[in-house]
Each structure stands twice: as structure tokens, then as C-alpha cells.
């Protein structure tokens, strides 16, 4: 279970080993999420800058297979939901349920990555490159590969983290805190996709 909070007084951290009444692992994951969110905010900001100043940005409805991307979004949201259940089960000490739902989350992540591989393959087969593409603004391909590539790398790392978490659970070594911290990262990956899906594919 979670490390016992040692600070109970007041609303501010007044020393002790547990700021904000949470484990240091969880707190550091939140700090990491803050910095990672700003990385993607910078990406999307520069994409917005380029796109607003561009006169020949491609009609994304023509380039992307929106039905595929929508299914990818569904898969990622669903894997985030199963992760939330795994975290709740871990807190309740229900190890069997934790393993089941961690497994489902991993499957969701792998399906998402497979679909992204299909999407990239189609994009490249249609002539999309980092430096040029047949649809319009030359920067389009660069932003596509950078933004979805960075996100895809996050998903891949997330799958690895979840696999390690699952193996530790199976070995009886994993803690509820470990599941929760891995879950925070996984939800964050889903959160970033919300903005990529909205800003890059739909607008």
C-alpha cells in the first residue's frame, strides 16, 4: 500500500518525509508530468505558429484516415480506463484484478502502436516525408512525424513500464504505489493524445 503520510497538520508541507501526504515516487512522477506537458505544449505551440502562418497547409481530412485515428483514440482512452481500474484494484489490495487490468492496458497500448505503424506506413507510402510531402506546406510532414513520433515513443515506453509493473505484480513484489505511479504516466500519455488528436488531426 501507499507510504503512510507522516504530515497531517495544516494545508502546507511543514517538513517531514512526505510532502502533500503522498509518496515521493508519486510526487516526482507529477513533477515529471509537468515538464513533459510543457514539452508537448512547446511542440503544439510551434506547430500552431507554423500552421497559422502557412498559406498552403494541407487539408488534413484528405491526408489522414480519420476513422482509423478515431479508433486509435478509442483504444487509448479505453486503455486509460482499464489502467484506472487497475490502480483502484491495487489500492484495494486485489492483486488478481490488478494483473487482469494491467494486461488489458498493455494490450490496448500494443493495439494503439500497431495502428500507428499502419498509419505511418500509409503516410510514407503516399509520399509523406520529413522534408516534403505531396499535399502542401513542406513543414507538414516534419510536424506530423515529430509530434506523433514523440507521442508514440511515450506510448512504447509506457508499455515497457506497464510490462515491468505486471511482471513485478506476478512475482508478488509490486506495490500499490508502483501501480499508481505507472498509471499516472499512462494517463498522461492519453492526456497528450487528446490535444494531438484535437489540434493536429481535427482542427
Amino acid at each position: 500500500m501507499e507510504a503512510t503520510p507522516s504530515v497531517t497538520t495544516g494545508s502546507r508541507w511543514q517538513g517531514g518525509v512526505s510532502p502533500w501526504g503522498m509518496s515521493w515516487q508519486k510526487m516526482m512522477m507529477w513533477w515529471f508530468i509537468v515538464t513533459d506537458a510543457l514539452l508537448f505544449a512547446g511542440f503544439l505551440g510551434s506547430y500552431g505558429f507554423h500552421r497559422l502562418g502557412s498559406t498552403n497547409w494541407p487539408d488534413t481530412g484528405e491526408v489522414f484516415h480519420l476513422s482509423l485515428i478515431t479508433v486509435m483514440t478509442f483504444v487509448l482512452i479505453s486503455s486509460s480506463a482499464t489502467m484506472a481500474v487497475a490502480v483502484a484494484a491495487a489500492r484495494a489490495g486485489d492483486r488478481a484484478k490488478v494483473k487482469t487490468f494491467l494486461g488489458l492496458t498493455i494490450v490496448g497500448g500494443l493495439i494503439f502502436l500497431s495502428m500507428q505503424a499502419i498509419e505511418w506506413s500509409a503516410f510514407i507510402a503516399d509520399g509523406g516525408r520529413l522534408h516534403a510531402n505531396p499535399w502542401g506546406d513542406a513543414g507538414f510532414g516534419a510536424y506530423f512525424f515529430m509530434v506523433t513520433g514523440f507521442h508514440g515513443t511515450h506510448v512504447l515506453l509506457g508499455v515497457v513500464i506497464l510490462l515491468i509493473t505486471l511482471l513485478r505484480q506476478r512475482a508478488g513484489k509490486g506495490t500499490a504505489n508502483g501501480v499508481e505511479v505507472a498509471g499516472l504516466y499512462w494517463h498522461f500519455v492519453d492526456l497528450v493524445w487528446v490535444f494531438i488528436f484535437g489540434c493536429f488531426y481535427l482542427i
Partner: protein
Amino acid sequence: METTRAAPDYKIYLKVWLTLLVVTLVMVFFQNRAVLIGGMMIKATLIVLWFMHLLYERIDFILLMVVSIAFFSILLFGLIAPDGLVM
């Protein structure tokens, strides 16, 4: 607010999940700017507050994270992107 809650309420995750799917469908269906921005904000709020359990943390931590992530992300995006219009 407590940081650990023993009895899990799985129903809330089902509700959040279904809401996220519906909002996604609405976004894909309409695709106008106001719906998209509203949809993204709703989805982000649901994910952060319920899936990431921020709602159940202490209020000072909630404010710290919301200000750090939301405010600075919007500031960063808002300082960079609009300049594209005057290029």
C-alpha cells in the same frame, strides 16, 4: 482530503470512460473550432481529475498542478502560436 481511499468505486471509471468516448465522437462529428476546443478541455479535465485522481489529492497540490500544467502550457502555446498570424 485523504490521499488513500480503501474502497474502490469502479463505476466512476465506467462513467468517465463512456463520457470520453461520447465527447470524442461529438468532436469528430462536428469538427468546428469551438466544439473541438471545448471537447479537448472537457476530456483533459475528466482525465486529470478522475483517472489521475487529482480530485482526491490535497487542495494545495491540486492548485499547484493545475497552475503548473494548465496555466503554463496555455501560456507557452499562447505566446508562440498566435505570432504565426502576423508572419
